[in-house]
């Protein structure tokens, strides 16, 4: 006799009693509670059986929804999660690789190799972890809201942390200030493919605010991956304003727009 069998006995209308039940109760504190006071709790919980819902009309409504699942977006968001993750992570990495081949930062040769690639690795790992969480959507195990937001905020500030952790040169040299606005625009443009793919792959119709901010944070990470290979500025202010703030700006925009940005058409 196990917990499931005891539960089934209650639900079927009887209070189970046998040597096997007694043996089980000796080791199971949860089931003992069900039997206390003349099995009051077990019997009360077994009463919670509402009449079954009318399946006919409900299934017709579902059929109607399913019949609208046509077109490119319906096909793409039905892709297996692994395939969607591979594309969402692969796109920024592909753009990064292209930048390294065509138009990499002028000081690349002088940049410390371990520092450069440590920065890339840190952002790539963060991107992969965040994309895996985002792509699973409603299928992910339940988690507290606090934990979800902690991870999202970490990803939002990850580019700034990486910039502080792997300095490429003089943080405050005036000549290194450059034009953060141009980098901001360029990075935002480089993140556009990621945002488009995230929208195409999103399975939920009403996208929760947390998922929107997470998407924005990941777009910021992907932008910073590309900017790291593109921009030679080492000024801390330039890096924070022109690079690391991209994710924050996207988060503010998507939060304002709300679910409409990623809702299905």
């Amino acid at each position: 006799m196990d917990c499931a069998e005891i539960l089934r006995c209650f639900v079927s209308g009887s209070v189970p009693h046998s040597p096997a039940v007694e043996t089980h109760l000796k080791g199971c504190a949860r089931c003992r509670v069900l039997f206390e006071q003349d099995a009051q709790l077990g019997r009360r919980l077994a009463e919670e059986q509402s009449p079954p819902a009318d399946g006919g009309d409900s299934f017709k409504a579902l059929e109607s929804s399913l019949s609208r699942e046509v077109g490119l977006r319906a096909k793409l968001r039905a892709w297996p999660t692994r395939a969607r993750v591979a594309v969402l992570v692969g796109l920024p990495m592909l753009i990064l690789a292209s930048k390294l081949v065509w138009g990499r930062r002028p000081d690349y040769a002088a940049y410390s190799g371990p520092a450069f690639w440590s920065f890339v690795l840190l952002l790539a790992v963060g991107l992969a972890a965040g994309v895996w969480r985002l792509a699973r959507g409603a299928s992910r195990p339940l988690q507290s809201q606090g934990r979800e937001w902690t991870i999202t905020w970490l990803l939002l500030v990850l580019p700034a942390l990486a910039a502080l952790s792997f300095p490429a040169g003089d943080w405050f040299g005036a000549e290194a200030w450059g034009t953060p606005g141009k980098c901001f625009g360029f990075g935002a443009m480089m993140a556009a493919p990621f945002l488009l793919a995230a929208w195409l792959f999103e399975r939920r119709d009403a996208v929760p605010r947390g998922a929107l901010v997470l998407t924005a944070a990941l777009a910021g990470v992907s932008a910073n991956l590309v900017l790291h290979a593109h921009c030679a500025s080492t000024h801390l202010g330039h890096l924070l304003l022109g690079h690391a703030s991209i994710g924050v700006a996207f988060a503010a925009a998507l939060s304002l727009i709300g679910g409409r940005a990623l809702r299905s058409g």
Partner: protein
Amino acid sequence: MDLAPESDLVWRALAETRSDEQLMSAYVAGDTAAFRALFERYAPLLLRSMLRELYVREEANDLVQQTFLQLHRARLDFDSGQKLKPWLFTIALNLKREYFRRKKRRPERSLEGEAAVEPAVEALGAAQVDARRTLGRALGALPADQREVIELHWFGGLDFPEVASVVGASVSAVKVRAHRGYVRLREVLGGDAPLPPLPVEGGEPSERRNRTTRRSI
């Protein structure tokens, strides 16, 4: 996807003989009748679960629809080596959580709200309706993590390892939450109110009122 309705006899027969995993595998392979069988098997259970906290039937129905729509969109993620039921409940509970977060708060309990989702009093009997309301309030008073575990374990019929996989906690943590929840429920429900008879499948309301609980103690 062609969703021309199958005859009732065909899909009812399918639902009776195949497991959840077989039905889902068949649906992934293109058998639409299998999806209807899954829907008929789990939609009532999920609807009851939603109604215990939403109190608005249309919105509860909508969340059940969304659950199966998500299942459809995620069908290629299905692993026939894993159980379907915990996955289905994971989707349902995530959608329910997201619903309440959008609403910012849980709905206020009101007699009108409870009456809107309960069967007519004459169908059940006033005592049963009152007992159900009391139980509903007792469940609602539990902390969310305990309520979810009891929801999945008792009402959903998942075992503790399955509940643990849904809520993302260890089996021992889930057992502790279940124990605390059951203890709290017993305290809240108390021992003074007489227990109405257990409802049975079908039967006239008078039969339900007159039938006594089978007790083997």
